């Protein structure tokens, strides 16, 4: 099992996610969905070590994550954050070549021949081979997202974490990106995405994990979890679930009555 979370609790000062238990199978695509402030991005930050857990542990390849060096983790786990800083004056190929850093010892100045081969391979894989010499700041939103995906893939990870990868993309680019991820997933890469759009999550994921107020409300195969009751509790909307050519999809009808639980305070 490439990734397991045991009783994971953490946040900024107050814990935002509490007692999360999860295990990700080899080659599985898991999506974290939930309302704003439900803790899905925080959970991803805890897994990717941007935040330190207050309790519990992240277990990678059978070993607790703090037993690895930062570089060793970066060889197994890569992250595509929600918003990237766009480096000025850097070409796509230079950007992607930074993805080989986890494999370079500190004294190594240049990439090896194998490293460059990997960089070229991921550029081909993401359809960015024609953009290699373009400056990153000159790319469109969709191309930029693919360039950063290529950077994450250059790390040759077992597990790929993506925080809202489709947020700033139009529908065409959203589907392109997710289809690309599907291909990677079918080649054996485990994927965890935080997705705002429940329909996209339902369409592409193997399993959904619904978060509500920092806890897992429901987790399981899409057909088991995607019920009107769960969506009403987690998102506060009344919905009908439709069978469509791309699987189960959600059609929101109206905001549901206030839930019995107290409203959560945003941080």
């Amino acid at each position: 099992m490439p990734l397991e979370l045991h009783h994971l609790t953490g946040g900024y000062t107050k814990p935002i996610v509490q007692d999360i238990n999860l295990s990700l199978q080899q080659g599985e695509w898991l999506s974290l969905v939930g309302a704003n402030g439900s803790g899905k991005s925080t959970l991803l930050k805890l897994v990717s070590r941007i935040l330190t857990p207050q309790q519990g542990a992240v277990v990678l390849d059978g070993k607790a994550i703090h037993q690895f060096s930062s570089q060793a983790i970066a060889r197994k786990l890569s992250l595509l954050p929600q918003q990237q800083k766009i480096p000025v004056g850097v070409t796509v190929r230079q950007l992607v070549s930074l993805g080989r850093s986890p494999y370079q010892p500190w004294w190594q100045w240049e990439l090896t021949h194998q490293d460059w081969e990997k960089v070229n391979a991921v550029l081909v894989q993401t359809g960015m081979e024609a953009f290699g010499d373009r400056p990153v700041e000159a790319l469109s939103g969709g191309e930029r997202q693919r360039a950063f995906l290529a950077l994450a893939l250059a790390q040759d990870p077992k597990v790929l974490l993506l925080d809202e990868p489709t947020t700033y993309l139009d529908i065409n680019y959203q589907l392109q990106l997710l289809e690309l991820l599907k291909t990677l997933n079918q080649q054996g890469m485990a994927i965890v995405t935080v997705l705002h759009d429940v329909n996209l999550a339902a369409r592409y994921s193997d399993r959904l994990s619904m978060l509500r107020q920092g806890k897992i409300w429901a987790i399981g195969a899409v057909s088991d979890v995607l019920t009107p009751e769960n969506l009403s509790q987690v998102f506060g909307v009344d919905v009908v679930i439709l069978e469509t050519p791309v699987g189960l999809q959600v059609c929101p009808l109206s905001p549901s009555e206030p839930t019995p639980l107290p409203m959560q305070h945003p941080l």
Partner: protein
Amino acid sequence: MNVIRFQPLHRAQQALCHYRVLMAALLLFIGLLSVIILSLCWGAVSLSWEELGLAALRQGSLTNQTILWDLRLPRVIAALIVGAALGVSGALLQGMLRNGLADPFLLGISAGAGLVSAALLTLGVFQAWVPVAAWGGAIATTLIVYFLGRTGAGLSVERLILGGVAVSSLLAAIQSALLLAADDGRIQAALTWLTGSLNGRGWSEVAIAGPYIGVALIGGCLLARTVNLLNLGDELAVGLGVSLVQSRYLIGGVATLLAAGAVSMCGLIGFVGLVVPHGVRLLVGTDYRWVLPLSALGGALVLSFADLLARSGAVEFPVGIVTALMGSPLFIWLLYRRSPMSEG
């Protein structure tokens, strides 16, 4: 097959990039060499080519030999060392803080060194110890700023910058009070030191600070790949295997040691650390593997040229005034040249 197909393209692109770096390095190197030779020839007593050659071989007039070996050469070397230290220090901090306004003195170095040396010079005590004390003051202030920059989880860039500004203005106020209370002769000495001057720097300063700055320069250049990763933002840098806290202490530490070493040699010379990395990035782009070593070359070039200007008038100016006079317009020009690109 695809992989092989794109190989020549990337080779060509890499070659082009290397060519650009090589040209920039060559340009800086030739500039530096000319300034060094000019600096050795020019001065109150001008040496001709022939005299310079003879003096370099320890032949000819004894006066010329003394001028070359004991006055001009150590001063030029001091300018090179200090300029390189300030250039690399500024480039490291601008890269780490992702802020083009960062300079070696942002984290309180100038304020700490300035206060301590102003105190010694205006009170007239332990004046021989001013360089060491300035170094100590610089390091101590930076430690305070780093302490202020700590957050629960690590080290915040915003807090570091704000802490540096706050501590600097506090220490600057105390320094001004000391200067106002001092008598005229001592104010003169303190002001000269505070503006930064290379006047009278000899082999002893070079021998003490030179090796230490040399080691720190190499250390700084080895951090280039980490700086490149930090430029992608905290989250991606962590994802790529950078330890944020460790790398910030390391980069900030080397930058501080460099700037403090420079300050201990010739006082507070502004603008070199701010302007040089901007100029170098214009030449070779933002890859810090090239920006850092070329900032060393560029800093050495700018400071030795400024010192040449400072002592070519009838009265010698402190070199810090010349760097500020040259640096401010240059900086404004760089900013205006850069702005359409960053907006577009």
